[in-house]
């Protein structure tokens, strides 16, 4: 059973690594941020599977921290993108 859990954790990471092609191809920054979000979700699943396989339950807490970090990374990107967009657009959300 543990071998199956490790194999599925590796498979999950392999499918997430396919997202690197999206980072390479783009075309926009939002597309690249999507791949980073995929990496967060897949990393969480791999960590949970590895925690069950090894019996080291601390990895579940690492999965929780990774969920928070992935969310905040995406929000930071959206914040900077919105600021840039407002700077370009005189009719921005601020209405200035």
């Amino acid at each position: 059973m543990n071998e199956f859990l490790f194999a599925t954790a590796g498979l999950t990471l392999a499918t997430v690594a396919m997202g690197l092609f999206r980072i390479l191809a783009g075309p926009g920054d939002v597309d690249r941020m999507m791949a980073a979000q995929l990496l967060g979700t897949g990393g969480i699943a791999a960590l949970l599977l590895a925690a069950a396989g090894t019996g080291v339950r601390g990895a579940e807490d690492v999965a929780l921290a990774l969920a928070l970090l992935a969310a905040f990374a995406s929000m930071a990107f959206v914040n900077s993108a919105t600021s840039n967009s407002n700077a370009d657009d005189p009719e921005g959300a601020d209405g200035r």
Partner: protein
Amino acid sequence: MSVALNIFSIIAIAAGVFFFFAGSVGLLRFPDRLTRMHALTKADNLGLGLVVLGLLPRADSPLGALKLVAVWLLVQLAGATVTQLMARAARREESAPRSSP
């Protein structure tokens, strides 16, 4: 009973990995951003949910199982919120006038 639980775990985790694969293929192959976001959030969150479902019988205690479900719910909430924000940023990026080089 233990054999049945193991079979249940194997089936659920295998289905979860399949949905992760489907989400990755959607991220690579779908034509525009909003459809790629749809594939990302729906398929991947379902994959994570199935993985958590498969791991529930192997949890040490009811609190451990609750922690697994909490991880999944947190990712669901974060994914929904962040995808809405990213879709808005993508629309702004497309509609903003291009700065001349």
